[in-house]
């Protein structure tokens, strides 16, 4: 029994350490020993179709379209395709002033679909695209003015099929009004560090959905209900033999999720999407078919196994603890860690409540001021 538990403890601990520490170290060494630089041409300005799938984003879209129209890119080589996916708000009316081509600004088109899901909306957007390069965008984020230029310069290398840009969260710039900015910012920086290293070796395991470019010929229709379109589509580029690189100079900006509940919802979706990928595209799991299978297993699937490994580490160390100082220390260390996490949760809860109270107070003051003025 003791030796079985010891095996469980060390295998589970090894998995957790490999996924979060060993894998990034392996990547860093690999990227140093066998880097695969690719050719970049800043003068390359291919025709670009920006595809933006939106559902009930009528309030945000005018600002977002203004942002895309102000990009530093030749207007005659750019088009913007908004795919409204079952919107029931005033999306079409909000976009009406922008539709069509006008003078020197890029053409804006709207495709209206019944509610079919984001994957089908993206399929429709790419099918309607007239240019050879498709850039994917979301309604909430904003692009830096040179984001598209920076993305497409990487496609000058024929071996590159897709390029992921960098999403910068406001918590990284120190301006977030989020109670979990610290932790989300730390996690996101770590994630981008891994993507950068993966890109140096070959390809990243997916792209950032809010800012990435792909050759249109490499797009394969996404199945309805795909949760992680920004991983499935780029991984299919890899399976087709091309590279997916990460360019941190192609930047989009976003806000940090306001609280832990929102972040948990987002994470649940992302991690469920990783399970779904294995079902939708099982070739990704195979070493002789997917040349970045080690990265895919380590980066995407390893994280799905970590929660169960953490439970195994805790239970096995507790069982082994009686009379064995090492396992007593290991168990106490974990208790301390989880107590710290509980304290972190309590801090988040308190700050969320204060933020909510402050927001309510502001709303009341505004309402009172309006009543006095009226």
């Amino acid at each position: 029994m003791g030796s079985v538990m010891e095996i469980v403890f060390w295998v589970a601990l090894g998995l957790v350490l490999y996924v979060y520490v060993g894998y990034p170290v392996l990547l860093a060494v690999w990227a140093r020993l066998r880097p695969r630089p690719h050719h970049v041409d800043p003068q390359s300005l291919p025709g670009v179709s920006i595809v933006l799938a939106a559902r009930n984003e009528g309030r945000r879209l005018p600002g977002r379209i203004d942002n895309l129209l102000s990009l530093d890119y030749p207007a005659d080589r750019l088009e913007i395709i908004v795919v409204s996916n079952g919107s029931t708000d005033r999306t079409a009316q909000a976009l009406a002033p922008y539709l069509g081509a006008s003078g020197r600004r890029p053409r804006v088109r709207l495709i209206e679909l019944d509610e079919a899901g984001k994957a089908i909306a993206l399929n429709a957007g790419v099918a309607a695209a007239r240019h050879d390069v498709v850039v994917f965008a979301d309604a909430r984020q904003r692009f830096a003015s040179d984001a598209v230029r920076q993305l497409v310069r990487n496609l000058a290398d024929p071996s590159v099929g897709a390029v992921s840009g960098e999403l910068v969260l406001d918590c990284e710039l120190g301006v977030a009004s989020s109670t979990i900015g610290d932790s989300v910012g730390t996690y996101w920086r770590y994630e981008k560090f891994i993507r950068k290293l993966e890109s140096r070796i070959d390809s990243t395991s997916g792209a950032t959905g809010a800012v990435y470019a792909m050759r249109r010929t490499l797009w394969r229709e996404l199945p309805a209900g795909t949760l992680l379109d920004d991983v499935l589509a780029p991984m299919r580029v890899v399976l087709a033999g091309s590279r997916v690189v990460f360019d941190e100079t192609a930047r989009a900006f976003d806000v940090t999720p306001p609280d832990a509940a929102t972040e948990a919802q987002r994470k649940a979706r992302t991690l469920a999407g990783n399970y779904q990928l294995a079902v939708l595209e099982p070739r990704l799991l195979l070493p002789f078919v997917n040349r970045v299978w080690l990265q895919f297993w380590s980066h995407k699937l390893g994280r799905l196994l970590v929660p169960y490994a953490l439970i195994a580490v805790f239970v096995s160390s507790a069982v082994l603890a009686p009379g064995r100082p090492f396992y007593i220390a290991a168990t106490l260390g974990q208790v301390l860690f989880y107590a710290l996490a509980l304290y972190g949760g309590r801090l988040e809860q308190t700050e969320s409540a204060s933020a909510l109270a402050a927001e309510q107070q502001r709303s009341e003051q505004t309402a009172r001021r309006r009543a006095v003025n009226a």
Partner: protein
Amino acid sequence: MPDAIKRAARVSFAFVLMNVSAVAGLLRLLRRREVWK
């Protein structure tokens, strides 16, 4: 409480949250519930 401990507590919380979310995501997928709002 020192700021360094508060920061460590927040990062630990985020790590635990991520792992709880991984299990929650799988359960929702198995129950075919909407997970991508």
